[in-house]
């Protein structure tokens, strides 16, 4: 967070539960108390932890057991059904998909049609009524033409229909609907054809109007393509029709056809309007172009004559041709004198010239050097000290119009400035040095880039970003201007609490440990599609939380943990992975039909998580013949290197299972050890058993802890 708000230990701001809130409400006045007493007496109040109210229970208790059960079931069922239906409606109501809505609508229409048919057979009176209603609708539609392309919506769609198939479809649908509504109930073939034609016609009309719409702006609307008077003219002698601002503007533009480009633009616009006229215009333009080209040709020839050596031009790039034109005359003047201008064979050159010309035209505006020089000259001119004219006409002289100014006086009152120092950039042709620094402005400017910024752009962009309300919406304004530290008035700020800091860290560590010790992963590998859904499965109740934390994507998988039948099935179908697929990554697999659930674990896939008081080991709190195993103290084996304790699990593929850490810790207190530190005996329920260590081999076989497997992962 950008702001730190003190004091750091904030009060608990959890939401109240309804229960908590309700408990706070207590009747205060005597009247309230009376009412509350009466209300609480009622037997119809819903009670905590029971589905039935007292009254309902009373009714049920009076029935005999079977009846009562039936009744209860019925009631339950009804409630469930109601809630299902409600939730279903709620869900469907929320669906926003247009497609779905359309399908629903179509379904409904079909249903209605069917019903209509049914009605016609069964109840002719009602059918007649319905037909009348339909007739009314038809009349309405014919009158309003609501589903034709005259509505605002349809007009908008029509614009998009050209490019957008979806819009086109929608429009067609609309038209279809209109057609259907307008059709007589008894459909005949010739009538069916009609509306389509009309639609087509309308479309034609529309396109025409659209054509005329745009030219309205550029050409006065009186113009018609059939008007012979206008076809031969161009912009100059068009009949004026000062109807709109736009037309005036174009006329003005047309009048001042100083350059080719401008004319071109206007004419291009016109092209959209009437093609006939444009052809003529184009022809004319061509003529003009030719003329200009001729002119330019002549110019070019002259230049080349001056330059003499054409190869030089060849060498230099085309892009900076105009630049060359500027400089070359100076450079080649000497050459001019020495060499005789030679005109080479024209045929070859014309093509080259033409190209040259085109390029020159294209880059006519890019006269960079000239522009620069011009700018520099202007600046020089501006900065040159100017003489001050103090003469006041009319003083000591005759004033008025037409009187010649006395030159002597003029000279006398014209104060010449002292000659300026030569500019710093006199000898630097490509540089302009600004000698007029704005001192007033410089006071306000930052001279050095401040510390956290790396470049000027960064700094400038932060300065450009306004903070005020005028430029930012309310929330952004507040966020931008948040103070870095906020304190609460009159509240003591305690020093940082160490326990809070470190406890958080500890918690995190423990959680991490848990996730790393036992981790099973399932791969849901369907053969139909090779999509892999990765699922994280943990053993033990304690890790449930971690599943959500580790991989929030598969939240619903946690529901499987509670699903006892699933777990029973899952564990009973557990086996070593020998399918030559993911063998190394997932050493175990549990089958389920065509599905293979691949399992990865740190040690053994079976972990005993619950030791009951009657010495029954449970794996995963499931009580089944396969996963509940009698605890036999003598068969316990402790792996010396890791300190982990294992127990045989007969009937399961791995034959052994790991004992949960907390239980094994408890067990380890009952061990007695020999001199090497190996456990020798175990005292369990006041009896001492000698450890047989019979499952040592199996542990070495199945336990993956500290095996190569860990390194390969």
């Amino acid at each position, binding site marked *: 967070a950008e702001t730190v708000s003190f004091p750091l230990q904030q009060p608990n701001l959890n939401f109240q539960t309804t229960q908590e809130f309700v408990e706070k409400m207590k009747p205060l006045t005597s009247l309230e108390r009376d009412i509350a007493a009466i209300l609480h007496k009622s037997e119809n109040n819903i009670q905590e932890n029971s589905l039935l109210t007292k009254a309902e229970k009373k009714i049920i208790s009076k029935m005999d057991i079977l009846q009562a059960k039936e009744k209860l079931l019925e009631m339950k069922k009804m409630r469930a059904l109601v809630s299902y239906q409600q939730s279903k409606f709620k869900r469907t109501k929320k669906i926003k998909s247009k497609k779905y809505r359309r399908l629903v609508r179509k379904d409904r229409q079909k249903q209605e049609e069917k019903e209509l048919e049914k009605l016609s057979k069964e109840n002719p009176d009602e059918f007649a009524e319905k037909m009348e209603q339909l007739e009314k609708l038809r009349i309405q539609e014919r009158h309003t033409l609501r589903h034709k392309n005259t509505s605002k919506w349809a007009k908008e769609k029509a614009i998009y229909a050209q490019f957008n198939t979806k819009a086109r479809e929608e429009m067609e649908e609309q038209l279809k609907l209109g057609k259907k509504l307008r059709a007589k109930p008894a459909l005949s073939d010739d009538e069916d054809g009609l509306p389509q034609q009309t639609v087509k016609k309308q479309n034609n009309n529309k396109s025409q109007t659209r054509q005329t719409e745009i030219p309205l702006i550029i050409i006065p609307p009186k113009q018609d393509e059939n008007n012979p008077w206008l076809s031969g003219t161009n912009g100059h002698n068009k009949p004026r029709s000062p109807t709109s601002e736009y037309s005036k503007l174009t006329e003005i533009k047309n009048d001042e056809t100083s350059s080719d480009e401008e004319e071109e633009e206007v004419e291009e616009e016109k092209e959209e309007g009437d093609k006939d006229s444009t052809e003529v215009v184009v022809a004319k333009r061509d003529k003009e172009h030719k003329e200009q080209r001729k002119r330019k040709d002549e110019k070019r020839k002259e230049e080349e004559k001056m330059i003499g050596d054409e190869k030089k031009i060849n060498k230099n790039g085309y892009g900076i041709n105009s630049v060359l034109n500027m400089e070359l005359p100076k450079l080649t003047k000497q050459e001019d004198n020495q060499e005789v201008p030679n005109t080479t064979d024209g045929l070859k050159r014309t093509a080259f010239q033409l190209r040259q010309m085109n390029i020159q035209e294209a880059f006519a505006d890019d006269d960079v050097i000239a522009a620069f020089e011009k700018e520099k000259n202007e600046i020089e001119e501006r900065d040159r000290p100017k003489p001050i004219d103090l003469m006041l006409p009319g003083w000591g002289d005759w004033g008025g119009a037409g009187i010649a100014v006395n030159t002597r006086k003029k000279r006398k009152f014209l104060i010449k400035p002292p000659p300026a120092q030569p500019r710093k950039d006199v000898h630097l042709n490509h540089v302009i040095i600004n000698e007029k620094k704005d001192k007033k402005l410089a006071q306000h400017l930052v001279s050095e880039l401040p510390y956290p910024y790396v470049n000027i752009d960064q700094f400038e962009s932060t300065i450009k970003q306004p*903070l005020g309300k005028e*430029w930012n*919406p309310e929330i952004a304004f507040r966020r*931008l*201007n948040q103070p870095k530290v906020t304190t609460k008035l009159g509240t*003591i700020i305690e020093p*940082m609490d160490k326990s809070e800091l470190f406890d958080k860290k500890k918690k995190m560590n423990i959680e991490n440990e848990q996730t790393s010790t036992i981790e099973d992963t399932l791969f849901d590998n369907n053969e139909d599609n090779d999509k892999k859904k990765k699922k994280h499965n943990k053993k033990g109740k304690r890790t449930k939380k971690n599943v959500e934390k580790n991989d929030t994507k598969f939240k619903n998988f946690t529901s499987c943990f509670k699903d006892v039948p699933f777990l029973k099935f899952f564990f009973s179908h557990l086996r070593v992975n020998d399918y030559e697929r993911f063998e190394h990554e997932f050493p175990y697999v549990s089958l389920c039909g065509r599905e293979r659930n691949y399992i990865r674990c740190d040690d053994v896939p079976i972990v005993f998580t619950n030791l009951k008081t009657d010495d029954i080991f449970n794996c995963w709190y499931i009580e089944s013949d396969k996963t509940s195993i009698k605890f036999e103290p003598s068969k316990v084996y402790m792996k010396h290197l890791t300190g982990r304790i294992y127990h045989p699990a007969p009937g399961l593929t791995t034959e052994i299972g790991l004992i949960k850490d907390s239980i094994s810790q408890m067990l380890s207190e009952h061990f007695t050890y020999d001199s090497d530190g190996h456990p020798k005996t175990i005292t369990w329920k006041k009896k001492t058993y000698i450890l047989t260590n019979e499952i040592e081999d199996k542990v070495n076989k199945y336990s993956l802890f500290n095996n190569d497997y860990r390194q390969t992962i």
Partner: protein
Amino acid sequence: MKIKVLSRNPNDYLRETKKDISKIQRNYDTDLHPFETSREYIRSLNAVKLERVFAKPFLGSLEGHRDSIQCLIKHRTQLSLVLSGSCDGDIKIWNLPKRECVATIRAHNGFVRGLSVIPDGNAFYSVGNDKLIKRWTFDKYDESTMTIVGKHIFTSIDHHYKKSEFATSGETVELWDENRAQPTQSFKWGVDSHSSVKFNPIETTVLASCAADRSILLYDTRQSVPLRKVILSMNSNTVAWNPMEAFVFTAANEDYNLYSFDMRNLKQPFNIHKDHVAAVIDIDYSPTGKEFVAGSFDKTIRIFPVDKGHSREIYHTKRMQHLTCVQWSLDNKYIISGSDEMCLRLWKAKASEKLGVIRNRESEALEYNEALKEKFSNFPKIKRIARHRHLPRSVYFAKKEHQVIHESQKRKEANARANSKPGSIPYVAERAKLVVEELE
């Protein structure tokens, strides 16, 4: 025919009652609000000027002591209470909002050297030149509830932040249990005098003391011997722990500077805070851990940001003499200082802050101004105004003098470097020069 008429429904723009929120129609079109940067620049200029206009940090003085004030401590659970001890052996308990003395206790013969309030705030301890440790409760000031006779003069006392333990400094640093008359532990590392001892507020078993051999010592109450000893080039008067970062403490040194150390790396301070022109006597961290206040022998109080080398603020008055103690109040709002001329002074921690209730709109405007000042803080005009402080004449010239001294030293070193074999006089960072020795 449809006729379009301009119509406005008064409901859209009129309030029903006076207390309703009035609608403000706003248009964010950039064309309507041009020159945003220049306008905000002007606003920030105004804001920074206003800040200086409103900078009136002095709230009042608490008078009543009959001798110069030796020690000052804030109550740990009550914001309104402050305790001060003077050189004539009086302890006074002050109510800050009322600005009056709640109680006067004749506690010791001679100086009251140190005071410390216990964590639950019901009692406090005092030590004096008469070699006594006295415990007092807040409900009865006539008599001390407990008196311990020590072997030597105590210079300071500090109570543990959680447990019922306290530490005293004197010839040795001693650790006491509240229920015993003898120290539970006594730390000694070859020095005969410690000037102050302070517990770490977060890592509560750690404490630091300043000794007369120019050293700062670190202890752990769980160990019987001191942890570390750092010898600086000059004596430190006291240290203060950062209440938000367990391993950071700052030492107020006799060489006019303050040094922030990281407990984990004592080879050099991670920051040097300069600006005072005489020995720094006392220091206290703000409860947010972002700033600290230092009182100096140069008769000024300065406020330093933790991560900056120079102070952001200086407080002084004509009448205030050498500072002996400073405290930053636990709500981060006020600073209390005690000085030689028998007065306690109450200051605002932020000089231009408005006291009292601030309405939403006003606080919004203040925040906006603050943000603007921050945004344009690098612009010369604004920087100049924001930095400008009036200094007492003595400080002003002393500062200049120190500058000259510093420059001449630098010049001398540069000359020496220029006239000797390259590499024979190495460049040494300012921070690396400070620590003489670190002992374990």
